[in-house]
């Protein structure tokens, strides 16, 4: 299908915080209550529309377990966006955010948009991490913040789309080098916009990629 841009995302965070469920809810609009441990990395994709433009999201859902950490690190560099997920009913998953963030900052390109996701907002009765704490952490580290529920689908769309909007804005501002596919952004085959900022070479690139 034709798209204007392609963004690569990764989803990271402790095991069991609901990364795979977020992806499943976003791509298939369903919820899988049984925890099926992700092995390594799984792939999912969906088309969204921002500013009237079709944008393809390719999402790599990573395993949260420590033993897979070295594998998942290989995905940071090529991603344009990252969803860093914790579980509001488990404080330790919130406490580990700093480690995750350091890891991400170290291995990713500096422009990667990171969104902090506080998942399982439907389990209010078991909440251990206040929304304010998440917001404060996000503010402190310059992240976008959102509370979601993969189960009820609350804010799931928004989480993925807002991240895409942020990336899109960065492209418009010319922050991202869209000619380097290693940044996790690709211009669509039919999309040649010599007028858009920072893409004076983008047209050639797109021309080369379409054949």
């Amino acid at each position: 299908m034709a798209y204007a841009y392609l963004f690569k995302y990764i989803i990271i965070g402790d095991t069991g915080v609901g990364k795979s469920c977020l992806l499943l809810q976003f791509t298939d609009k369903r919820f899988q209550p049984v925890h099926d441990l992700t092995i390594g990395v799984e792939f999912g994709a969906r088309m969204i529309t921002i500013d009237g433009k079709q944008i393809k999201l390719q999402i790599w859902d990573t395993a949260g377990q420590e033993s897979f950490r070295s594998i998942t690190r290989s995905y940071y560099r090529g991603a344009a966006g990252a969803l860093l997920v914790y579980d509001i009913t488990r404080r330790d998953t919130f406490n580990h955010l700093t480690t995750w963030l350091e890891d991400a900052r170290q291995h990713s390109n500096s422009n990667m948009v990171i969104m902090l996701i506080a998942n399982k907002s439907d389990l209010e009765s078991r909440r251990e991490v206040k929304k304010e704490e998440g917001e404060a952490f996000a503010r402190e580290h310059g992240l976008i913040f959102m509370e979601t529920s993969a189960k009820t689908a609350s804010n799931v769309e928004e989480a993925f789309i807002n991240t895409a909007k942020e990336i899109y804005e960065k492209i418009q501002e010319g922050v991202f080098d869209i000619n380097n596919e290693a940044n996790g952004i690709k211009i669509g085959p039919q999309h040649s916009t010599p007028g858009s900022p920072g893409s004076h070479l983008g047209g050639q690139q797109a021309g080369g990629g379409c054949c």
Partner: protein
Amino acid sequence: MNFLRGVMGGQQTSGAQQSGTQTIQKLCDRVASATLLDDRRDAVRALKSLSKKYRFDVATQAMDHLINVLQTDRSDSEIIGYALDTLYNIMSNDADETAESEDENQQIAPDDLGVQFSETFINQQENITLLLSLLEEFDFHVRWPGVKLLTTLLKHQGPQVQQTVLVSPMGVSRLMDLLDDSREVIRNDGLLLLQQLTKSNAAIQKIVAFENAYERLLDIITEEGSSDGGIVVEDCLLLLQNLLKYNNSNQNFFKEGSYIQRMKPWFEVGDDNSGWSAQKVTNLHLMLQLVRVLVSPVNPPGATNSCQKSMFQCGLLQQLCIILMATGVPADILTETINTVSEVIRGSQVNQDYFASVNAPSNPPRPAIVVLLMSMVNERQPFVLRCAVLYCFQCFLYKNEKGQGEIVATLLPSTIDANALSAGQLLCGGLFSTDSLSNWCAAVALAHALLDNATQKEQLLRVQLATSIGNPPVSLLQQCTNILSQGDKLIRRGSKVQTRVGLLMLLCTWLTNCPIAVTHFLHNAANVPFLTAQISENLGEEEHLVQGLCALLLGICIYYNDNSLENNTKDKLKQLIEKRIGKENFTEKLGFITKHEFYSKAAQKPQPTFSSPDHMLFDHEFTKLVKELEVVITKAIYKSSEEDKKEEEVKKSLEQHDSIVSHYKSIIREQDIKMEEFKQTIASLQSTNEQNQSTISLQLGQIQQHKDQYNLLKVQLGKDSQHHGSQNSTTQMNGFQPEDVSRLKGEVEELKRQQDILQGELSEKNVLIESLQQSQVDGQTDQMTEEIQKELETLRSQLHVQSAEINRLQAERMELLQKTETSGSLSASGDSSVNSQSNTEMEQKVAELLKEIAGLKEHLKNQSEEKSSWKQQLDTAQSTAAILQDENQKLKQEVTESKKEQDDLLVLLADQDQKIFSLKKRLKELGEPVEDEDDMESGDAGDEDDIDDDDEDDVRDEED
């Protein structure tokens, strides 16, 4: 250089081995101890040159030193290059090793040597990390041997090296960068490296895919000329296969990345086929295999299905079908294309329908299916091609009731077309040909037309065959059993087992789950004795499979028996088994099927693959059927007749249950439908609701606009009222704000007050005028005052009317205000229809009111004009009154003057009276007679006095 020459020279002389070892020792020492880089470099270069011939010695003595060089001399790419080359020579088994024939270690196989040395090297994990970091060096002399060395290490110690690469943060992406190297040698060797790297490691495969491998590899394939390209294309395809095979995540990524579309041009091979080089055949073969990887029957059904869809949508399937029907295509490419088409259409209705519509470009055009079947039943075609056609036919019929019906229909009397060669005719021809392979293939193909399709099983019973002229037609079923029972004759035809196995599989499939077919089969009295004879006979091992299949067929005749034939009821058949065969014997024979050596292989995957034509015995779908039936038939045989009856009852009750269940199912279905309807109505209601809400918001906006307009009007009117005088202002207002109303009220009050003042003034003036009237001598003034009074009276009444009107308008305004408030709240609550109605009402009212207001304004204007004219009149009246007063004053003055004169006259009169009286007295004294006249006169004068007095009083009154 002298030194080197010496080394080489020494080597060529006698005792080369000895001196070689010593030289290597010396070189190692030099590498370790030399302080000058040049010396070290020369030593490593010398080691490199010796590393092929004295592989073992260099490896054992120099490896540590070489690794040390890699660590310490990174700045000099030349020495690093030599070191890497040396290491590569040590590890690689490809190098020519004939020189080592006299090696003392020749007992160690060279393959093992490479593995051993590799193990030694990677024992230190840092060595691989070091190697990875060296690959970042752009210098050709470093990068190329580095790539080769790592490839060799991966070949020998794959899993360990993979693990190390995986945990080093940028490991894989660094290796991926090799594909972008402008030097083709490095890019091509990079491909080989990645091939080794991705071998059976899903995690690495995924990372490589993530690093845009598809894009890069497809670009390289295109650049190199697709299938016409060289070995690089082959390497790319092999790497792609590594990435995709059995890796669902990567397959999904491939599909989502729209890369299937990019595969289509690969298959645009010209029809002229001027040259089919070996490389082109290999490339196309791999391309076809790549397509098959994506639609393999072992993939998750959803994944395969979506790939099948996009292959049809992008025209890839169509392109494959063109190759299928093209001429001059090499047989193995054609075979693989058929297999590929098979898997692209398998279980996908759209693709199956398309395939059924494909025609061969012959004259007249024949359906592709017919053309393919012709090859299947043609003895001269290659075996693999015939298998591929069978597979294609099976895939075409897989989960395709429509296709099954179409195939069977070509055999039915009503639809048969005598002129054209049909699929059914070809299958029948194959079934009864002298070629056992054709028999088997045709039987299996026909069985697939019946799989899980009760309708077609019954339809096929209608098929009649004309065997030879003069004989009556025979049913297809009968003909099959005839051939079976004439097994003796078939011996002459060669592999009779294959034929009989094929026919038995067809019969088993046919009779399963079809009591009518069972009845037909049992109706032929010869069949049961034949089966029992086959089962009970003690035959050789090669007949075991046929015996097993006969047992299975007999079992099916029992299990799916509806007891409609008196001689062959379930019970009677079971008794027969007990008496003639024995239950134990029967189940043993039945077990022969699954115990057969080819059974499990066929059960593994749908594609029929056989190492030789003789091994063509089992069909995949049939193995599934056997698995299901073996258990139930064994149970059925061991059950007593009583149990059977019970079973029957249970069955009946089950049927009842079934009917109940089906009843409920239908209810559920109905409810589902209803639910769907409700959902739809809800959806439509929601949409209308949304529409309504949007109209509400629109109307709210309009209301707001109206309000704004009103406010504007108000402001304008306020200005107007300033011009027109305060009396008018209130009536012109039509705002909805309470403060406006209160303001208006205030204004009305003000108006009233002014009115009161005016009235007071008027009454005062009235009094004045009345008093004036009384004193008026002039009639004109009197009239004028009266007129004014009247006018005032009318003015007053008009004012009353106006104030009443004002009150009424106020009330209306209040009403309107309330209405707008209620309508506002209504619209907020969302009852749109009512709201919109009220809105229109409102709008109408507003319009009316506006009109009324305009009318009133006009009216008021008129009135105010009238009023002002009245005022003018009043003023003129007042001024006339003032004039009159003046005149009055004058008159009074005149009156007083005349009074004075009167007084003077009276005084004069009194004087004269006195004179007259005195004169009369004198006359009387004088004796003159005095007339009465004088008395009269005096009497008159007295009267006059009285009148004057009265006049004086009046004037005095007036003066008061």
